[in-house]
């Protein structure tokens, strides 16, 4: 307790120094480099957007500050190759709507003269905003959208650091493969369950494709309206298809409905593989209690992986202080934080604010995994602009807390397999 509080104090002092101090005095003469950020600041995704904005701003402040962490570009008081120019983030609201995201991107490019764009969380808004950047010839860095198709469009100016649904699905199958080797488990039939929006459809498609590739049978594919109030039919469909494992993409209310339905109907499977979202929401965990014990989820980030970057808890502390709900750093915010650093790194190496130079620098980006907050091997873009070092981790709910169980080399707990059967 005391140690933690002391740590927080030190962190606070460091941040105070990082954010004020020399940076403030230099602001007048050093040039500013504008990075435009499109985020859902209003509308249904506003809460998420607010968190992402905080994370991005934190990253920018750390780049402009002088306190060093084992992270790229942090603590160099701006961009050294550009005369310690400070980066300034300008935010524009997408409202979570494709047309608004487009308008926001245009505003950032034409009015704010952003040298690069970052954003936009929702895959549909990323699609339109990145098209604007493509047309204008401005680099677009997407740290947080998971639709696989985004990097299959042949865009020249689009770069994505996060792994996408395809990777997440592959991770599950790789995990199953690893388990087969180490534990000799038998899994043949998978049920693919998800809400019928972009999230559930994208995840489900990737999981179905993965099943084909890795030789599993799709026992059933269940797609349901996200706002449904009962899942009787859905649960029966899963039950009668008798799967070995269930892939599940749900928000909180529907995740609760399904878990209770599975329990009532005695749907005993070896594992439920959740796609993050509802299943990791603290309110879901509170409401479902011990009944979710043993559920697996894919994650892009964890506070607890082995060999993690020493900066993780520090950045987490800083982030908590800045977010009014005192929320911890999570997969979304960590990815957006890293996104700003990747852009800053590229602009600095470009030594110029010319779009072509920044794009060339982005294409040469190669940040080792240990210098990120993420469980990735590196950040390096392939020909499509997709980070080829990205990977997810798999966590399992053990004793009420999600613990990293895969990849085995970074796992903090052993896998419990199969999930405990329902007790009645």
């Amino acid at each position, binding site marked *: 307790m005391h140690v933690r509080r002391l740590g927080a104090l030190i962190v606070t002092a460091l941040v105070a120094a990082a954010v004020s101090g020399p940076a403030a005095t230099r602001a007048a003469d050093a040039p500013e480099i504008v990075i435009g950020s499109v985020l859902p600041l209003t509308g*249904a995704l*506003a*809460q998420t957007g607010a968190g992402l904005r905080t994370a991005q701003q934190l990253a920018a402040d750390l780049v402009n500050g002088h306190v060093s962490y084992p992270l790229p570009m942090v603590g160099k008081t701006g961009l050294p190759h550009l005369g310690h120019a400070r980066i300034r983030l300008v935010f524009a609201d997408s409202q979570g709507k494709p047309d608004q995201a487009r308008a926001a991107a245009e505003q950032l490019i034409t009015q704010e003269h952003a040298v690069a764009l970052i954003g936009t969380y929702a895959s549909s808004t990323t699609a339109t905003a990145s098209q604007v950047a493509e047309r204008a010839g401005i680099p677009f860095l997407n740290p947080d959208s998971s639709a696989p198709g985004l990097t299959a469009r042949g865009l020249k100016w689009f770069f994505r650091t996060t792994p996408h649904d395809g990777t997440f699905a592959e991770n599950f199958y790789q995990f199953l493969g690893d388990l087969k080797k180490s534990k000799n488990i038998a899994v043949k039939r998978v049920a693919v369950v998800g809400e*019928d929006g972009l999230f559930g459809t994208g995840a489900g498609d990737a999981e179905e494709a993965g099943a084909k590739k890795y030789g599993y049978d799709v026992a059933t594919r*269940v*797609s*349901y*309206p996200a*706002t*449904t*109030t*009962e899942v*009787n*039919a*859905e649960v*029966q*469909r899963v*039950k*009668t298809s008798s799967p070995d494992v269930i892939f599940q993409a749900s928000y*909180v*209310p529907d995740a*609760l409905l399904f878990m*209770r339905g599975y*329990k*009532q*109907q*005695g749907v005993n499977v070896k594992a439920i593989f959740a796609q993050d979202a509802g299943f990791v*929401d603290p*309110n*879901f965990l*509170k*409401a479902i209690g011990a009944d979710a014990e043993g559920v697996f989820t894919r994650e892009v980030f964890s506070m607890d992986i082995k060999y993690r970057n020493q900066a993780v808890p520090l950045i987490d502390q800083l982030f908590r202080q800045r977010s009014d*709900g005192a929320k911890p750093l999570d997969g979304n915010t960590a990815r957006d934080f890293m996104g700003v650093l990747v852009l800053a790194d590229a602009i600095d190496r470009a030594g110029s604010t010319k779009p072509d130079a920044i794009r060339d620098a982005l294409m040469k980006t190669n940040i080792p995994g240990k210098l990120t907050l993420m469980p990735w091997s590196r950040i390096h873009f392939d020909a499509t602009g997709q980070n080829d070092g990205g990977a997810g981790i798999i966590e399992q709910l053990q004793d009420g807390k999600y613990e990293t169980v895969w990849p085995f080399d970074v796992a903090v707990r052993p896998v419990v397999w199969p999930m405990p059967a329902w007790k*009645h």
Partner: protein
Amino acid sequence: MADAGVEALTTFEQLLAGGLLAGLVFALVAVGLTLVYGVMDVVNFAHGEFLMLAMYATLGLALVGIGPLVGLPLVAIALFLFGVVIYRVFIRRLLAGPPEATVFGTFGLLVLLQGLAQSLFTGDFQSVPHPPFQGTLRLGAVALSQATLVEGIGALVLTGALFAFVEYTETGRAMRAVAEDRVAATLMGIDVQRVNALAFGIGAACVGAAGALLMLSFPVFPTAGASFALTAFVVVALGGFGSIQGALVAALLVGMLEVLGGYYLAPELKMVPVYVAYLAIVLLRPQGLLGRR
């Protein structure tokens, strides 16, 4: 082979039971809406948001140690007062305007209440801590959620009570008179504004009771009511606007259609039979299943 047959039958029984229970939950939400429509010819598009407020109220009571079932009457009373106030300051004005005013006024109320919930309670999904009735009831091969069962019983009690109230009490008779003919009711010396306010309040109280019961099995969030409201509108129209027993029958039908359609057709198409039934009924029998005239 015989096993497969038995299994299919069990599945069907389970779906049937699940559909009936789902229907009762819809009835629980729809019954208050029916009364308001029947008496004053208003579809309250903010009905779902009343439900959402009731759920938050139940949550609030639960956080100070009053469980959903004990809290139910308190929530119902609170919603009754809320309904009367909303009628007196707002709905009454809408009724004086053109017909579309009630549609848009109550819709504005929907947006306003959702916004208020968002700013006061955040968008988080919140549940009552340690709600009762979390077990499963088994009848042979059929397994049912106890919480949903309690909600279903609540729906039957509420529907019965409301029916008895409207049929057998003096105030209920006044409400029916207003529903039949507002002008004639005025001539008979009935204070139409008072009856309307009362009906709106009682409708809200029903929603209050529904909200308290729903917290047994659902989390609350700013758009929680909207998920139920659309089904409730269909149920009320299907049963015949204003018919209390019609709403119950329609709700059971909707529950069955949704569940059986979801299983035998496709889960993503589970609302299709519901909407098709609605369209078919309003076209072939515009007064609804049990509506008069």
